[in-house]
């Protein structure tokens, strides 16, 4: 009777061994699950931020934005701003050249807006490397590529933009500062021209050319006028988003060939998550 009981006694170490193995597996499994749960919450947060960004990006396409108390939105018209794509031209051999008279315009604009006329040379030296400017490249991108301090970039934002060449300067929406730099005229003449364009006294390119030749008989602005348009139609706008008075996003949208508004370049400095 005692013999079988003694044999069973040897099962104890085996049982302990099994428990040990099971506990090791369980501990590792628990650690693995715990770490994955931590990662999951991190991924959820990232997805939430992405979702918020998407919702804010949609605001650029809405005309009537319902404002919440902590948020504010502002649409800016950019069609009357000088397009940097004008300073280069590509010849039949696909070589890119600087257009001297457009470079002079850019020098005047960078000088009047940020007091930095040398910046025009830096910009043209950079842009000459590219045959084409594609959608999705913003002015802040360009100035960051050139390592221009952001305080200067911010001064240049209301003066220059960068888009494909098809986005012409809308003289009807251009500021007096832009007209001054574009046609190299003084402030009072720019005021007059702006007034004449808005009241229809100079409704087309010929009449604008006539206005400029009256000021300076040696001047013809016909080549410059090829990059301009006189229209009340917007083709480029920006939406500035603020949260409790602090700007957190700049959404840049353009009108495409089909006539629909599309995203050009969105800058999110940060995203409010509440």
């Amino acid at each position, binding site marked *: 009777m005692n013999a079988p009981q003694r044999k069973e006694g040897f099962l104890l170490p085996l049982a302990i061994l099994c428990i040990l193995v099971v506990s090791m597996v369980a501990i590792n499994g628990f650690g693995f699950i715990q770490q994955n749960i931590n*990662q999951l919450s991190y991924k959820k947060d990232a997805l939430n931020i992405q979702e918020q960004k998407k919702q804010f990006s949609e605001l650029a396409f809405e005309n009537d934005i319902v404002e919440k108390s902590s948020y504010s939105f502002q649409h800016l018209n950019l069609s009357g701003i000088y397009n940097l794509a004008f300073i280069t031209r590509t010849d039949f051999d696909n070589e890119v050249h600087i257009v001297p008279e457009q470079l002079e315009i850019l020098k005047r604009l960078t000088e009047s807006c940020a007091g930095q006329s040398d910046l025009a040379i830096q910009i043209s030296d950079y*842009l000459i490397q590219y045959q084409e400017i594609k959608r999705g*490249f913003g002015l802040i991108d360009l100035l*960051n*590529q050139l390592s221009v301090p952001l305080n200067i970039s911010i001064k240049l934002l209301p003066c220059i933009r960068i888009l494909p060449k098809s986005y012409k300067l809308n003289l009807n929406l251009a500021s007096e500062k832009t007209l001054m730099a574009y046609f190299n005229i003084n402030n009072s003449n720019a005021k007059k021209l702006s007034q004449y364009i808005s009241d229809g006294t100079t409704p087309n390119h010929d009449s604008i050319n006539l206005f400029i030749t009256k000021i300076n008989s040696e001047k013809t602005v016909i080549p410059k006028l090829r990059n301009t348009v006189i229209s009340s139609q917007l083709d480029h706008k920006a939406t500035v988003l603020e949260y409790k008075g602090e700007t957190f996003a700049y959404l840049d949208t353009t009108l495409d060939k089909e006539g629909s508004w599309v995203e050009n*370049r969105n800058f999110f400095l940060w995203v409010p998550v509440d």
Partner: protein
Amino acid sequence: MINSRKLTAFTLIEVLISIALTGLLIVLLNNQITGSLKTDQKIKDKMEYKIEIETILAHLEADIQTASNLPSGYKSVVNFYLKDQLHISIKKFGISAIDQDLLGAEITWKFGNLGISRNIKSKDGKFERYLSKKELQANVIPIGINIFKLIIKCDGFTKSKLFKL
């Protein structure tokens, strides 16, 4: 009075075999426990390293997503090798840690024998932070114009991720 009743007991052979088996089991269990602890540590280290690398790659992806664009419309990201280290250079915007102002910055990720580091060059100065000090090998394989694959290898561990520019 001496109790003369005989009690059944273990024989000497049984006791010796039992002692030998117990000893053997103790040695085996000891080995097993030590081995399990080592394996457990190895698994933990590998898992922790995997998560560390995944977090680093997520950080790199966030840097690339927020990078400034080029006239081609793609992100301003440049990959090159220098002194056996892979460098991923990204131009982006950031907020100054000193005065909370907006600033442009150049972020350079370095992967190589010194581990993984993230270097920031901005108007605030130059900063370098090591995110992992484990020696590794890193390669970049371009896939199309605007996609590249980053492969990280070390001690039998391999991790790769695709990045869209």
